[in-house]
């Protein structure tokens, strides 16, 4: 037998895994987490009284919860090397149709409705989100239209459909019960809406990192042809991923209803871009095949913390998008240089 300078697998003890610390520092996620930590620490050092106020934190979390749910779905989509521009419009559509459905079954005003109506509203929101997601998925995987174009189409179409539903106005009459529990309610000081978002995020993280569904998501994004050749149903999987993103957008619409006590038809035009920015900031590669839900969590909070922090320390809030833009471009640039270095071998 020839001796090699490299060690063969058999001679390496215990599955020769890379040490945990090395694996962690090699991942983008850790660095993004550190950036977030530094931001919080900096703002905290400047104005500890304002930042660590319970209400500030509660509000920050609650506002971010909806975006977080959208971004979890977006993480899956981007890992398949796709994109979903429609999430904000789908959210609006789901939110409007859910509010109208709840009103309809309560004789026009659902303000005093009970849990049955609320459950029905949740179902309507989730299903209408799922239908848009399914439509996106089928057009992308079967008709082979690029995701950018398909979801640009549904971005407009879902928004238009939402406006048509109620003639372009917001829908009020959200059940008080819903608002009191999930909208403004808290558990141990944590807003309930945040708990919902956290549970969704945790499930999303598990789905992505521990299951076959997650593995196929990475495989399809990493090399679609390779996935096809090992017998993975690439079309089916892509459909499911966009379906997931749509469903989560539907849920996010319902959460918005609970929080704002009204289904608003405006103000979500840039949700898609915010979600994409969060996912990419979190170290998920826009080229597919790489990424994590944990990273997305950090990515969601960086712009939110910047915004709140800049306001609190008295910097004009107009600096916030500029600061986010710089971090975002830097993140993608880093990802790209790393890829290029790797692909040259």
């Amino acid at each position, binding site marked *: 037998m020839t001796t090699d300078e490299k060690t063969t697998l058999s001679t390496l003890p215990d599955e020769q895994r890379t040490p945990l610390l090395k694996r962690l520092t090699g991942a983008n996620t850790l660095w993004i987490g550190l950036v977030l930590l530094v931001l919080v620490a900096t703002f905290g050092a400047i104005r500890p009284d304002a930042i660590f106020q319970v209400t500030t934190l509660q509000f920050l979390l609650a506002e971010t919860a909806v975006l977080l749910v959208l971004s979890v779905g977006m993480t899956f989509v981007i890992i398949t090397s796709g994109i979903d521009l429609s999430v904000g419009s789908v959210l609006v559509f789901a939110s409007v149709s859910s509010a109208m459905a709840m009103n309809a079954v309560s004789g026009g005003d659902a303000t005093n409705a009970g849990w049955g109506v609320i459950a029905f509203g949740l179902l309507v929101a989730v299903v209408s989100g799922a239908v848009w997601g399914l439509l996106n998925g089928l057009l992308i995987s079967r008709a082979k239209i690029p995701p950018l174009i398909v979801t640009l189409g549904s971005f407009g179409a879902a928004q238009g459909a939402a406006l048509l539903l109620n003639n372009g106005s917001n829908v009020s009459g959200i059940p008080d019960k819903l608002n009191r529990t999930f909208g403004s309610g808290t558990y141990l000081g944590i807003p309930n809406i945040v708990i919902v978002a956290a549970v969704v995020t945790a499930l999303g993280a598990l789905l992505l990192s521990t299951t076959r569904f997650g593995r196929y998501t990475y495989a399809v994004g990493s090399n679609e042809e390779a996935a096809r050749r090992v*017998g993975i149903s690439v079309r089916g999987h892509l459909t499911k991923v966009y379906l997931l993103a749509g469903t989560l957008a539907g849920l996010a619409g319902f959460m918005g209803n609970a929080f704002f006590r009204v289904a608003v038809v405006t103000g979500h035009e840039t949700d898609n871009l915010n979600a994409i920015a969060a996912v990419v900031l979190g170290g998920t590669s826009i080229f597919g095949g790489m990424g994590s839900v944990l990273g997305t969590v950090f990515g969601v909070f960086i712009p939110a913390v910047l915004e709140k922090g800049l306001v609190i320390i008295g910097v004009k809030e107009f600096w916030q998008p500029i600061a986010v833009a710089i971090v975002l471009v830097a993140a993608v640039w880093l990802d790209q240089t790393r890829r290029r270095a790797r692909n040259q071998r």
Partner: protein
Amino acid sequence: MSQPLLEARDLTKNYGTVEALRGASFTAYPGEVVSLIGDNGAGKSTLVKCLSGVEQPTSGTLFFDGEPLVLDSPNSARDLGIETVFQDLAVAPDLDPAANMFLGREILKPGVLGLLGVLDKKAMRRQAAEHFTRFGATLQSIDVPIAALSGGQRQSVAVARSVAWASKLVFMDEPTAALGVVQRERVLEVIKRVRDEGIAVVLISHNMPEVLSVSDRVEVLRLGRRVARFKASDTSVEELVGAMTGALTQEDAA
């Protein structure tokens, strides 16, 4: 001779106006090593893709164990025990070697977790490590993405993956192209070992001495057609090159 394991008759494959195959035939017998050789662009990779269900031939027929066969997807070939090392390797660069080896055949955790689709990563890593050792893939670490490996290591992983799952036939499209001397010898060893287990190996290679040393038979493809077949023991490099370039033709080969 015994009945062919896999036989292709008069396959054609058009990509738009390009005729990649123009009536190509091919035969593989059980438990043999048969080399498929030909110049660049002769249609070898296209033939392999048609025979592993990745591409559908424009016309022509396939037989497996004497029965007519339609390979409408990669899965139907895999179900028959046919595995392939593609020329472009077809690995997912962002996944680690173990994940690539089990891609499409993941091991799930036992019980409820398995029903939920939860992967048994530990079992897969362990089995993959054993397997890579047995088939001589030299890797420093089993949990780095494939993209971080050298070209030759990637090729070794692809070879190890194919022989791990094949039960009847393995296609290897230039499996030694990027390999160093030691790894090349290992792959040739692997080919012989697989053959000795009764699995047929179809080797595509541009290295004639390698072809002659490892094969039982050689089939030659030229311009999308089979132009010659030889027993490896009674041919020579000169004869093979002659057949590939068209200097020599066999009447009955097509």
